[in-house]
């Protein structure tokens, strides 16, 4: 029992996430339809965030291109449904497989690169896909997108709750797999690679292979998000590959807490609530979003879900310390 406890890790790592899942399971009974829809889009955002967190928080790889796999998942799902006559679940799995293939091929090169090259080339890959999706008008419907033809049983407007549970169910399955992965020895090895790759290499760990493995897994997670987003928005268009998607993945992970399993879940909820209420409140969403984000960063720099230094609970103490150090900086700076 104790070894399971040790494997699971600190409660703060997965506890908040579990709490959110419980709320999510009960959501349709708690709130009205427009909030259930919001919940559905939060789940999708969470998956892309999880995909980013797996790479960045656990393996130390900053990918600015998870949108690639999100988009591949979305487009393959739609194309197989519309043109291949497949049912949604088969198309979704196919989308995840397609994303894993793309990740495998591109990752073979990408994971060998040093960090900045990795950031920029993952970004460039997403842009290439966006360009291709926008220009292959015959195949993808071009830049105005393609509506997906779903049966009524999966039409989110006809049956909000039912489709919500489909989205939640798939997401829970993906989360479970990802959780098992990070808590298994593979996950721990990755953390070792993140801390010091050179040392890991001297221990005989095949660093590139491990990185490629998590890269492929993260792609599958993002693709699941992309496929599910099709249920939520009912349309696919080239901006599913846009860098704003990758940026959102980064933002929700940072808001929630990097390297924390619950991080992307908390972050997706926070960001989703912010976007929802700010969108109702004003049309200058940029300004208000910026203020709220700034507030979040200043109050909880390590993320909403973090514990210890930089967490929400540590905020008051941190504030006092900062005021003192600013006063000290105003004089000469001895310690740098």
């Amino acid at each position, binding site marked *: 029992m104790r070894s399971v406890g040790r494997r699971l890790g*600190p409660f703060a790592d997965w*506890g908040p996430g579990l*709490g959110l899942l419980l709320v999510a399971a009960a959501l349709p009974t*708690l709130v009205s339809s427009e909030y259930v829809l919001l919940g559905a889009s939060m789940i999708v955002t969470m998956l892309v965030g999880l995909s980013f967190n797996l790479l960045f928080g656990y393996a130390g790889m900053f990918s600015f291109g998870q949108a690639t796999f999100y988009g591949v998942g979305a487009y393959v799902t739609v194309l197989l449904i519309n043109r291949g006559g497949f049912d949604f679940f088969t198309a979704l799995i196919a989308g995840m497989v397609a994303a894993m293939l793309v990740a495998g091929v591109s990752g073979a090169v990408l994971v060998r690169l040093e960090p900045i090259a990795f950031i920029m080339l993952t970004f460039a890959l997403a842009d290439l896909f966006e360009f291709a999706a926008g*220009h292959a008008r015959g195949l993808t419907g071009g830049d105005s997108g393609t509506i997906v033809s779903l049966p009524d049983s999966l039409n989110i407007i006809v049956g909000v709750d039912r489709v919500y549970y489909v989205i939640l169910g798939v997401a829970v399955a993906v989360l479970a797999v990802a959780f098992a992965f990070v808590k298994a020895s593979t996950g721990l090895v990755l953390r070792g690679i993140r801390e010091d790759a050179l040392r890991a290499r001297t221990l005989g760990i095949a660093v590139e292979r491990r990185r490629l493995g998590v890269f492929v897994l993260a792609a599958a997670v993002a693709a699941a998000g992309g496929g599910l987003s099709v249920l939520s*928005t*009912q*349309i696919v268009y080239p901006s599913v590959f846009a860098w704003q998607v990758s940026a959102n993945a980064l933002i929700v992970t940072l808001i929630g807490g990097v390297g924390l399993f619950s991080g992307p879940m908390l972050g997706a909820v926070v960001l989703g609530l912010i976007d*929802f209420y700010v969108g109702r409140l004003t049309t200058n969403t940029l300004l208000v979003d910026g203020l709220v984000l700034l507030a979040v960063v200043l109050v909880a720099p390590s993320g909403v*879900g973090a514990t210890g230094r930089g967490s929400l609970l540590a905020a008051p103490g941190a504030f006092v310390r900062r005021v003192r150090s600013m006063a000290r900086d105003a004089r000469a700076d001895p310690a740098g």
Partner: protein
Amino acid sequence: MVGRYGVGARRVLACGLAVMVVIGGVGCGSSKAKEGGLAKGAPLKIGYLASLTGFCSGFSQDYVKGAQQAVKTINAEGGALGHPLQLLVRDDKAEPNVGVSQARDLVLGEHVKFLAGTCTSAVGKSVARLVANPSHVVYTVGVADPTVFTGSGYTFATIPTANIEGANAAAYVRAHPQWKTVAVISEDYSYGYEVTAAFRKGMKGSPQKIVSQEFVPSGAPSYSSYINKLVAEKPDVTYSTVIAEDTITFVKQAFPLGLFKATQLFGILDYGTIDPMPKPPVGALGYTYYPSASIYNTPLSKKLDPLGTEVANSGAAGDGFNQIEMIAQGIEQAKSTEPTAVRSALSGATVQMVQGSEKIHGCSNLTAVPIAMGPVVGPTKALPFAHFSPIELVDTNKYFTC
């Protein structure tokens, strides 16, 4: 160990409770029963989607102002069937998923039965899909993609689609047989492709030769390379459907490169685009279907005047105005606020727009608004902004097959 668990557990409880309180609190507030018909004199909500960031952000505030002006003037005259209109404006960021989620929130959360606005076909397409079964929401919008309007029957157009625009441009070029060579330059996205395809179709059989066809990237900082190419080709006429801020970039860079000496420019030159230009392309042949107030002399065009000369003539304000007017008139003609009735009334109806009396063709839900064409002149005393003079108004009904 225990301390860490303690902190963690407290956090979960706090987070979970906070989330539940927030969601529960707001959830309770909006689980209203579905409304039946509107109570007498109750406000009628119209959701308006504006693209305040993204491609057509330059015009979106004008769209909103036009829509708000329509609400104001309609309410001053008693509203639609006695119901005062209430405009709920949301930013769709020119992104389909944001547009759809805002539209859904308006429909499900605010219980609107009428939507208007957006300027990108991608958002228009996804919202049009939403307002089909089972939502039954009437949606008026000014986008160029014809596929937005096929299908549900609940979406109505306030501007010509790309097909009509291209066909009209071809007719105009054919009416000038002295132009033997034609170059086409448009934007590298769906609108550009559709317009160019329609133009080419219209030019079939003409002895005039299309010598080049370019699709320039939208939002590019430099069109100089493309302009140089055109200058080298020296076509008799260049048909341009470069739009919005890209037109400004194009014209600004075209002047020093001598484009206007090398070819006659013909194309879409909305007033809202040529007005901000420090040096408008005087002598270029422009057209616009956006209802700038000074082009038309109708009762509704006068209602735009309180917005000020610049906004009233931006064209976008007129389109926003028309979108709301169409909804209000649909309600009046149907003598009902139910979207199913309004939609039946609008299909095939004649409505009053800034441009005058226009027909909505029942088979396509497209409105045959006129296209204003003429050579660009600089600001004059009477009209202190760049405009067309003299103006020819083309009746687009002839391009409709049904």
